[in-house]
């Protein structure tokens, strides 16, 4: 078909729009726009996006659920690697032994993220020894915990080495330092 436009630019536009009109139906344009609209609005509903939000702001799952106010709860931030009964529930504190038990001279040191400032702190997990198991507030934090064949960083074993008695009472979590 001979173009009715005069200038070269007009002819170019006319030709392309005529060819588009011949090849594509009006409904197809509408349906494609609609599909894009639906796809764009449905994108945040995809499971990938939900998972990213649920993952929280820290790399550690424990830190995302942790709090800094109550040391008698398993989710107190320092307990990210603590396995056993909380001394804070047994008459002691998170870093002090209950009366009648004594702190083991050896401990294993792990690191936990403080959820309030996002910094990593080193925590000494020191068992209180010399008294029967306390039996209250049993918690299992497993950040950095390794199998028994790496005993230096395993929290399943009783850490009363060097103490006057190997009888385990409860686990404490003392603050050692700021890592970063």
């Amino acid at each position, binding site marked *: 078909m001979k173009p009715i436009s005069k200038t070269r630019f007009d002819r170019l536009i006319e030709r392309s729009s005529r060819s588009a009109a011949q090849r594509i139906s009006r409904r197809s344009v509408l349906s494609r726009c609609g599909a894009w609209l639906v796809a764009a609005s449905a994108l945040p509903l995809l499971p990938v996006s939900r998972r990213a939000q649920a993952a929280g702001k820290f790399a550690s799952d424990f830190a995302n659920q942790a709090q800094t106010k109550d040391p008698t709860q398993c989710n107190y931030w*320092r307990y990210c690697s603590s396995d056993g009964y909380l001394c804070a529930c047994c008459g002691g504190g998170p870093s002090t032994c209950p009366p009648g038990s004594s702190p083991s001279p050896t401990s294993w040191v792990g690191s936990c993220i403080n959820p309030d400032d996002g910094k990593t702190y080193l925590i*000494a997990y020191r068992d209180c020894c010399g008294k029967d198991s306390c039996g209250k507030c049993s918690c299992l934090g497993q950040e950095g915990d390794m199998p028994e064949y790496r005993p230096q960083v395993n929290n399943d074993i009783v850490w009363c080495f060097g103490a006057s008695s190997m009888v385990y009472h409860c686990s404490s979590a003392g603050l050692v330092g700021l890592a970063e």
Partner: protein
Amino acid sequence: MNRGAVSRVLSILRGCAVILLWPSAGISQELPTSNVPDVLTRNTGLHLEPMPRAARIYAENCQGCHGWTGVSVTEVPTLAGRIGYFARTPEGRKYLMQVPNVALNPSSDADIAAMMNWLLDTVSRAQLPSDFQPYTAEEVARLRKARIDAPAERRRVIEALVASKQIPSPDVLAIPHASLY
């Protein structure tokens, strides 16, 4: 209400505000605050500085048993005032990298080198030889490959230190519970 009454009311309100705010302002200035957001440290004034990476490697891998100062219970060999002696001979220098918990440690060669240089300088500087060369990551990688019989190698290294007059007697580096190792 005229202008005089308004200004009287305002001045009374100002006085009340000063009285109400005074005690809380005083308390917040007197209680020391900590840079660790935690229920137990909040009002202790505890201020923690970030530790150097080498110190962190020591803390996470060694401190639990050897203690922060390199001195612990008699079951655990003392590091402070002693480990520098080992750096006085090539065999002793190797031994420090080949004791099982150093050789098998999951930390990188660079981290182990930095940790050992920092530890030697921190807890045993007086025992280091005057020409001590810090460990490099390459040296650590090479030395860490060997698997030794730790008690036998320790005896050999200490005998050599005595023979070359680096230490007066083996007692200087004796460990109380030698049977544990």
